[in-house]
C-alpha cells in the first residue's frame, strides 16, 4: 500500500512537470497562473499521499497551508498584479 501511494505521488509529480509546458506557452499571465493553481491542487494531493504512505502526519498540515496559500496567491494576482491597464494611475 505504501509503495502504491509513493508510485501515485511520483505519477502526479510527472503530471505536474508536463503541465509546466503551459507556463512556457502562455500566452497570457493568467494562463501561467493557472499552472500555479494546479501546483497547489496537485501539491495537496501529493502531500496527502506521502503523509499516508510515510505516516508523517505533519505533512497533512503542510497540505492545509498549501490549500490556503493558493487562495491568497490567486486573489492577490487577480486584484493587484493583473489589474486592468486603464485603472492604473499614471501608467500607459
Amino acid at each position: 500500500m505504501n509503495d502504491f501511494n509513493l508510485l501515485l505521488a511520483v505519477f502526479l509529480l510527472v503530471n505536474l512537470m508536463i503541465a509546466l509546458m503551459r507556463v512556457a506557452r502562455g500566452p497570457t499571465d493568467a494562463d501561467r497562473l493557472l499552472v500555479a493553481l494546479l501546483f497547489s491542487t496537485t501539491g495537496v494531493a501529493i502531500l496527502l499521499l506521502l503523509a499516508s504512505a510515510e505516516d508523517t502526519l505533519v505533512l497533512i498540515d503542510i497540505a492545509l497551508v498549501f490549500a490556503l496559500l493558493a487562495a491568497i496567491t490567486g486573489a492577490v494576482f487577480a486584484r493587484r498584479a493583473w489589474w486592468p491597464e486603464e485603472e492604473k494611475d499614471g501608467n500607459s
Partner: protein
Amino acid sequence: MEIPELLSIIFLVTGAAFFMAGTIGLLRFPDVYTRLHVLAKVDNLGLGFIILGLLFQAPGLMAALKIIVIWLLALAASSTVSFLIARQALNRGVAPWKAKEQKI
C-alpha cells in the same frame, strides 16, 4: 487483498486519472476560460477521489475529518480564484475563443 484496501486503490487510481485528464485539458484547450473550466472541475474532482481513497487508509476518525476539511478548503479556494481570474481576463479584454473561427 482486503476490500477497504481494494476500494482505496480504485479511488486513488481514478483520482490520478482525473489529474492526468486535467493536464491534457490544460495543454489542449484553446483559451484561458476553457482552461479554467478544466482546472476548477477536473482537478478538484481528482483531488476529491484521491482524498476518498485516502479516507480508507486514515488512522482514525479525526484524521479522516481533517483531510475532508482540507478538501473543502481547496474547493472553495480554487472556485473563488477561478472566478477572480475569469473576471480579470474579461476586464482585460481577453477575447473568448469561438468554435466557428476554428472551422473556417
